[in-house]
């Protein structure tokens, strides 16, 4: 019988399972489309390698561990681009549907991935200087005090510095990000969209000259992926993102060029873009990737490790870290949900590496308690 409490509970679990199912099917639908497209793009650049013996091993590995999954296209792609013949590559579909969905409790991530609350989670010296927070058309200072609109605009005009304005949630792929002098921003803020959603206005980080020389107009950041393995936090893989053709965003989807970083902070020999073209030098500045290094990479990776410890609900986190002109790591954002992994695997080889069997074990342990104890309603 449907009673009041009963109805509420039923609706909760109904939506819980509906969203789980929707996420899974949507992920696999989207990713299957993407792999077909990607393989077409790759075939224009290099020959796609076919190795019967290798495929057999891969199929066996996937089938035995992931409920009879048998798509080998992802392995084909990674093998032909990175020249590493390993069965430990993780297909994107498996990563999203098996590892991330279950080992990262994404319902806990809403606030934590909100840029407005970053100053409560991290130390202020590790963040870019916040100028204002803009919530539903109301201005707040960096100390969360309310400011009247006209006063705030005058302050912004007087600041006269290069600033960046970005949405506090869902700014993935460089969506709605504007970089400009703060004087020009005053007129922009009158637009309708800035009266509705919430945004954060920060000073543009002055980056380290060693990174700036690749591409000066964009902030070139390191993408570092960390994982929690019971007793310690490990760094799985990292790459550097540089902008291209005077863009303000270094993102791969926005046409940027990505280059792998090894554990000592040195760059790999080549970079790739989202069309899987290989570059041995940066196309704009003509600087060689091989031999270059990220300054103070150790400090940056240590920062990620220290901070991942605090987030017990997330097993995988992707961090965007910039290096400022003094060499200090500056935290830009972190992604506990829908983090891309194919760039990591193309540039640095198998993502999970020696921890593959550990994470497969964890997945099988925890796959049954997917829903949070109290689904949000």
């Amino acid at each position, binding site marked *: 019988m449907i009673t*009041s409490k009963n109805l509420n509970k039923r609706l909760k679990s109904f939506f819980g399972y509906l969203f789980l199912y929707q996420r899974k099917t949507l992920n696999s639908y989207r990713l299957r489309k993407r792999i077909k497209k990607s393989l077409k793009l790759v075939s224009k650049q290099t020959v796609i390698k076919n190795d019967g013996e290798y495929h057999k091993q891969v199929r066996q590995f996937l089938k035995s561990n992931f409920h009879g999954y048998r798509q080998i296209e992802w392995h084909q792609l990674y093998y032909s681009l990175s020249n590493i013949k390993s069965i430990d590559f993780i297909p994107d579909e498996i990563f999203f549907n098996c590892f991330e969905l279950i080992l990262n409790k994404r319902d806990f991530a809403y606030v934590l991935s909100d840029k407005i609350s970053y100053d409560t*989670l991290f130390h202020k010296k590790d963040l870019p200087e916040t100028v204002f927070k803009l919530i539903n058309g109301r201005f707040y200072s960096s100390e969360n005090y309310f400011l009247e609109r006209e006063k705030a605009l005058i302050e912004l005009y007087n600041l006269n510095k290069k600033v960046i304005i970005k949405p506090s949630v869902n700014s993935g792929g460089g969506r709605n990000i504007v970089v400009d002098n703060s004087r020009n921003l005053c007129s922009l803020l009158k637009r309708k969209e800035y009266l509705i959603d919430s945004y954060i206005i920060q000073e543009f980080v002055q980056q380290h000259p060693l990174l700036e020389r690749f591409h000066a107009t964009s902030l070139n950041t390191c993408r570092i992926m960390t994982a929690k393995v019971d007793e*310690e936090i490990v760094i799985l893989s990292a790459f550097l993102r540089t902008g291209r053709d005077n863009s303000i965003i270094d993102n791969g989807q926005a046409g940027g060029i990505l280059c792998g970083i090894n554990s000592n902070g040195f760059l790999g020999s080549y970079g790739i873009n989202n069309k899987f073209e290989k570059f041995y030098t940066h196309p704009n500045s003509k600087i060689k990737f091989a031999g270059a290094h990220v300054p103070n990479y150790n400090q940056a990776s240590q920062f990620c490790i220290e901070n991942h410890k*605090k987030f017990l609900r997330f097993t995988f986190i992707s961090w965007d870290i910039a290096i400022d002109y003094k060499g200090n790591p500056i935290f830009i954002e972190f992604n506990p949900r829908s983090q891309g992994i194919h760039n990591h695997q193309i540039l640095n080889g198998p993502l999970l590496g020696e921890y593959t069997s550990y994470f497969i074990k964890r997945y099988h342990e925890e796959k049954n308690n997917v829903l949070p104890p109290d689904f949000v309603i």
Partner: protein
Amino acid sequence: MGTKLRKIKFVLLNKQRSFFYRRFLRKRIKNLIKKIPSTYQRLNDDNYLKECRYFLEKYFPGYKNTNWHYFYSTLNGIKDPRYIPEEIYFGYLDPLLNNYDYYLSYMDKFSFDLLIDNEYIPKTVMRITNNRFYDGTFSFMNFETAMNYLGNYKTELVIKPAINSGSGKNITIDEAKNIVKLLREKQKYKSGSFVVQEAIRQHPLLAKFHPRSVNSLRIMTANLGEKTVVLSSYINFGRDNQRIDNGAAGGITCGIDKIGALRKYAIDIAMNKYDKHPNSNLKFEGFKVPYFEKAVDFCIQQHKRFIRLTFISWDIAIGENDEPIFIEMNFRRQAIYGHQRLNGSLFGDYTDAVFQKYFYEKTKEPIYY
């Protein structure tokens, strides 16, 4: 497709919620009125009820039910037309002004250390998720070392679920030895997430009323855009040697006025009045909560960190060292019933400001997660 589905979920759940509250809270208030003990003098004032109807018509055209007003003013004797009926609070104000999607991340006791100033939180001894043990500094421990570490504690410890510990559910306060025994033997601690903290030592003046339980303050603050204010506050006392002070767990509650003095009467869950604590026989009237201003300042300062939320209810204890201690914060379905039956209208002089914010936010499109 994802965002479309989320939009549908949002609209559907909102409809369901307001329908649910309209229908079932109307029943609840009828039952509550029936249960009022005969010692209370019944209210019989048509002019007052007319004023109430006028107030409701102003902000919620079409809503005419004055039962809540009747109930509250009978209990506390304050005739104020600005009482907020629960249907309106839970059905409309709360879901719009406090985004429920934030519930899990903010209510998670694992993230309290990140969100609140650390010196005001009781020391975390152990965090447990799915049978993995992490100590206060987030370093991993295996089962046996964790048990040894806990067993060496000489003070009392509290173990509680990291989420969903409302009205004292599944909370155990005991000596370290017995907590270790529980963790070894009980099956329910083998999965799910729990926090082990040091037990709070409360201020001796508050302990006098009922020493077995931590007698905590419940302070409700509101962020009205320009400023953050305290709306209302009351105090929970434990009773009959229980460890938990919660009203639903059998405790009694007493209102606190703006300067921190207790009101004349306290009330228990069956609405019986007490002018002194039934166990210790201490009078409520004339008692001033020690360091109440500090606690209020603390709440207002901490609310600044949560600009996304409008209403927050804080559970605060006053410690031995005269500093406020943060126990928990609530922002989803926080009990406004407790505030209004003790202190009068919830929003009081801020009624206009709250509704101004409500109508302002109503024109904006919410974030669909």
